[in-house]
């Protein structure tokens, strides 16, 4: 395979070499079932316990508050549906935002169809929420409020601590989808009084197929997969041992390198952003107050699928919030919620970095991107409008 410059880390990340090494024994010699009586299997239980401690440390939580799941989407589903069940049949209202990941949005749509009231909070042009509006939307029958920690498409951060404190003061459950924040920035559940939080292993260099649902001590989440005692009976089924062990190591690694990674990724992202703004005209950055690894940028007059295809020819992996790449005809719900004009929403590209990106890779992109933009603008009927 020819050169690959991977700048799509909000989609998934490389499994860290340390993580892979830690997983290997559980995919070969140590294949025992942690629920077994014999020490060959039962001994594996200790490795899962260790991973639970590591995951808890990443969140400054207690190991007893960690439920291992299959992915971030499962965690989101389980948290929202579980919270509604706990809140009781009289609470028929759910508050989410218009920029949530589909894993939350579609649960909202499903519940709406079931007769629940669902408030989808708007955001402004910078991607920010109006906190007063959020609080005003909470009513007597509100069961749960769910606001993401950081947005996957734009990297926009939400003030979850402030939101969690306010929501909790009204006696309502609070869930946050921290899939894009976990492992990238400090997520301290001692500071943020969230009841539920979702993480996904493969977004921070663990493998696919493993996620975390944090459930605050004292909350008895009803079982949502029945058939065994695993995960405190909440989520039955034999554990994804290798995945869980890997997530634990990835969490420990993230905690260790977070400050340094964040600084480095931020510096490279800023170089990329500055470079693009300087070398291309009519370019707009989407979102303010963002994660340091994310750059969502719109190229006026051209459509992003065409840009992605050209970048792909050069081995540069990025993604877009555009319609054309997904078979979905309308552009990204996140950019539309922000009120980004259609042409800019159709022309948006997301670059997302990880600790494994190098300066040389950013230089490679900055060298190759401007000619692609120029070429596509030559084809565009709007190009002549550039002065």
């Amino acid at each position, binding site marked *: 395979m020819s050169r690959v410059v991977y700048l799509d880390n909000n989609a998934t990340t490389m499994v860290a070499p340390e993580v892979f090494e830690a997983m290997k024994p559980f995919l070969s010699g140590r294949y025992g079932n942690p629920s077994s009586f014999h020490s060959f299997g039962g001994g594996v239980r200790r490795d899962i316990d260790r991973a639970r401690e590591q995951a808890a440390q990443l969140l400054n939580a207690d190991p007893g508050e960690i439920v291992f799941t299959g992915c971030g989407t499962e965690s989101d589903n389980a948290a929202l549906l579980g919270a509604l069940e706990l809140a009781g049949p009289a609470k028929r209202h759910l508050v989410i935002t218009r920029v949530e990941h589909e894993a939350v949005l579609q649960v909202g749509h499903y519940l709406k169809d079931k007769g629940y009231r669902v408030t989808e909070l708007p955001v402004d042009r910078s991607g920010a929420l109006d906190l007063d509006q959020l609080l005003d939307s909470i009513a007597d029958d509100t069961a749960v409020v769910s606001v993401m920690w950081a947005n996957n498409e734009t990297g926009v951060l939400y003030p979850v601590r402030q939101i969690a404190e306010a929501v909790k003061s009204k006696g309502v459950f609070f869930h946050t989808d921290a899939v894009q924040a976990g492992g990238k920035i400090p997520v301290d559940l001692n500071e943020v009084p969230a009841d539920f939080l979702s993480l996904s292993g493969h977004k921070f260099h663990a493998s696919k197929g493993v996620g975390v649902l944090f459930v605050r001590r004292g909350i008895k989440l009803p079982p949502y997969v029945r058939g065994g005692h695993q995960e405190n009976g909440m989520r039955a089924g034999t554990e994804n041992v290798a995945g869980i062990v890997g997530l634990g190591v990835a969490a420990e690694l993230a905690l260790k390198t977070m400050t340094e990674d964040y600084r480095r990724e931020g510096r490279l992202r800023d170089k990329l952003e500055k470079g693009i703004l300087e070398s291309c005209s009519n370019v707009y950055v989407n979102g303010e107050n963002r994660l340091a690894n994310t750059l969502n940028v719109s190229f006026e007059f051209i*459509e992003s*699928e065409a840009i992605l295809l050209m970048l*792909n020819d050069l081995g540069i992996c990025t993604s877009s919030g555009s319609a054309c790449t997904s078979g979905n*005809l309308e552009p990204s719900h996140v950019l539309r919620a922000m009120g980004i004009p*259609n042409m800019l929403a159709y022309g948006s590209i997301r670059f997302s970095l990880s600790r494994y990106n190098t300066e040389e890779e950013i230089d490679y992109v900055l060298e190759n991107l401007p000619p692609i933009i120029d070429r596509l603008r030559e084809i565009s*009927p*709007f190009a002549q409008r550039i002065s």
Partner: protein
Amino acid sequence: MWDYTDKVMDHFRNPRNVGYIKDPDGEGEVGSMACGDVMRLMFKLDDQGRIADAKFQTFGCGSAIASASVLTELIKGKTLDEVEKITNQEIVDYLGGLPEQKMHCSVMGREALEAAIENYRTGEVSTRKLEGRVVCVCFGVTEKSIRNAIEENGLTTVEQVTNYTKAGGGCGGCKEEIGEIIAEILGREPEAGHEEKTAEPAAPKKLTTLQKVRLVEEVIEKEIRPEMAKHGGDLELVDIDGNNVVVKLQGACAKCEMTWFTLKGLIESKLREKVSEELVAVEEK
């Protein structure tokens, strides 16, 4: 990642005939920014009435660029009578196929060609032409475009119509209507509860101001408002100033980038059909 053929990738990477022609004999532009695709086609004829040169410009994805590029190759050297027969399927065949969800790119190519030929014949600048009734307000797709796509490509499902024309791909409010059009063309029984429009009287020719106001109100109430409600929108009649009907769009339609289609394609065309040909729908700013 789409499974594009080598031919599509070739025409995307090396598009033929990009650019514009000064003083073209025919020029057509279809699509709109709100739809995410715009295609402009221009041609120049030689002494024998054959297309001597053709150029295109496209805002769109890889397959939209490739479809336009192929189209220019297909029409060069042919007479207008010959190119008029070119179907979107020929563009698709030339490209060795397109993913189902991208068929609308080939349809747009054919529509750009139609618009350019019409411009040559009538001198009319047919940008964003909306012939007939708009069915899909999100993407500004007319009943005529939907019927053409169904008939020329033998479509049988709403999903296919969305792939070929984009109609129904936004809010989905028009899916039922698309289903009715398919049923009608395939000779199936139309869905129960579908009202026949032909039974209603045509618009009277001369109206007093009072009659006009009342009729406008009635058409808005009975025909336009329910249609907009399907898309989560609403409107308020602000004023009738001569032939200008001033309205204020509300709900989903007010924020939508497609207000132009709502205003012209739905409100104005309904008012012209039912009240007077001279009416113009204007949005209150």
